């Protein structure tokens, strides 16, 4: 249901207040990482690329500095056998690292949008270094590496993503694609099936399954899946933040499509 004018006016007022207080927070503390991050997200929503990148980078720089200080403080306490307080500082540093990993992940999405894939890769690598259990970072890095034809490393990252979050359909989809590339069709089929089970109306998984069935010479199944894709043709809604990455394996899909059609 569309929003009334009054509702839109109220929402716009909230956005104004939100920005006002974020700027105020940064006026007081120019190194406030969380405030930079939130501003970056707002600018990203408005399509202001320059400010988006600026605030993401500021958030990363501030976080990194705080992390260094916290770790240094923790080390000092540890040397003096103040274990609990040292642990407290290390835990704070850990929380900061996770936040910094999140910023790097978002910045990588921003770079992917602009096709700056090397920068995106660096951000994802940083994100993983800061928070090794970030499933989305592993998955997206895997997809980027897959596009760069670094299949072995790509596979390691996507498998790691699945270790961390087995319910992520995009990881299954991309692992399926990697396996298909390695001619491991049975496992490819298994992962595409799981991807479809998790997100039944996600056309790309179904389409890839159709292509795989052609390769596996299961024309009837392929037809069934193609028909399903057509049924879902209206289902073109992007999926969360990963809409850009979903388009990344496109080159592979095109190639596959061609090879499928030849068959």
């Amino acid at each position, binding site marked *: 249901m569309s929003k009334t004018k009054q509702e839109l006016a109220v*929402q716009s007022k*909230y*956005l104004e*207040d*939100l*920005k*006002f*207080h*974020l700027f*105020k*927070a*940064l006026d*007081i*503390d120019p190194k*406030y990482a*969380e*405030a930079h991050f*939130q501003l970056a997200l707002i600018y990203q929503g408005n399509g202001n690329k320059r400010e988006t990148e600026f605030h993401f980078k500021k958030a990363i720089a501030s976080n990194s500095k705080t992390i260094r200080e916290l770790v240094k403080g923790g080390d*000092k*306490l540890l040397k*003096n*056998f*103040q*274990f*609990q*307080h040292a*642990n*407290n500082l290390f835990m704070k540093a850990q929380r900061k690292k996770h936040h910094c990993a999140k910023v790097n992940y978002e910045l990588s999405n921003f770079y992917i949008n602009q096709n700056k894939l090397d920068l995106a890769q660096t951000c994802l690598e940083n994100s993983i270094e800061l928070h090794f259990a970030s499933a989305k970072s592993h998955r997206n890095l895997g997809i980027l590496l897959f596009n760069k034809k670094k299949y072995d490393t790509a596979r390691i990252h996507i498998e790691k993503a699945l270790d961390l979050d087995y319910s992520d359909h995009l990881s299954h989809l991309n692992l399926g694609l990697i396996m298909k590339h390695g001619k491991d069709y049975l496992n490819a089929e298994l992962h595409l099936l799981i991807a479809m089970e998790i997100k039944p109306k996600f056309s790309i998984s179904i389409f890839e399954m159709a292509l795989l069935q052609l390769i596996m010479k299961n024309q009837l199944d392929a037809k069934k899946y193609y028909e399903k894709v057509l049924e879902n043709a209206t289902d073109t809604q992007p999926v969360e933040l990963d809409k850009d990455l979903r388009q990344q394996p496109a080159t592979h899909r095109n190639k596959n499509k061609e090879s499928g059609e030849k068959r």
Partner: protein
Amino acid sequence: MSNVQKHLEQAIQINPKFADAHYELALILKKKGENEKSIEHLLKAIDIQPEFPKAHFHLASHMNTIKDYKTAKKHYIKSIELDPFYADSHFYYGLMLVELEEFEDAKKNMEKATDIDQNYSLAYYHLARLLIDPEDYTKAKKYYLTAIDIDEKLEEAHYYLGKLLSGGLQNDMDGTLVKKPEYDEAIVHYKKAIRINDNYEKAHYNLALVYKIQKNYDLSRKHFEKAIKIAHDYSKAHFQLAMLFKEIGEA
């Protein structure tokens, strides 16, 4: 010059080796802010009577103030050695150890102070603040409550108890780290802290955070704004108020 001071000075003139007179005079001078003179008299008192625990304690306190921690430590320890049941020595030594980031020893001294004087509200409060391990959650809560029970006007104890309860980080029975926030109880203590001191910006800020979690947006906004009104340069309050607007806008 007060009569007491005059008479003490006369007593010292008559008997320069009168340790108690030097000590009492030092306390008067300390109260008047004449610290150098106070230190001189404490040193004399100790010189005359080396086993004078209170003189050592006050000298340590002076040294602590001027950040001569090494000397302060020596005299606090001496004072404790001479009179192990002098709660103040343990308490203030504990506070100095916190400054020096020697938290474990600070904790032991605070515990000792509470053992000696079971009505030492500040010692309970500071001891609770030192118990940051999730394993000590229940103990910390108990000590804050004891401090408040002894002195219910202890606004800081209400505030930090509120923080402990709203954080809720503790170890379960089997030692697993769990988060079990006690928001309603936390609200009670933040409100008590505010009732004691309406300009306690941190209490308003943390109360607002709890209301935000409970999706009580009006009260949350009210307290964030109050915190900002009290402290214009409260960056965290501005940030969290911004996040509140984001949440309301998305709701």
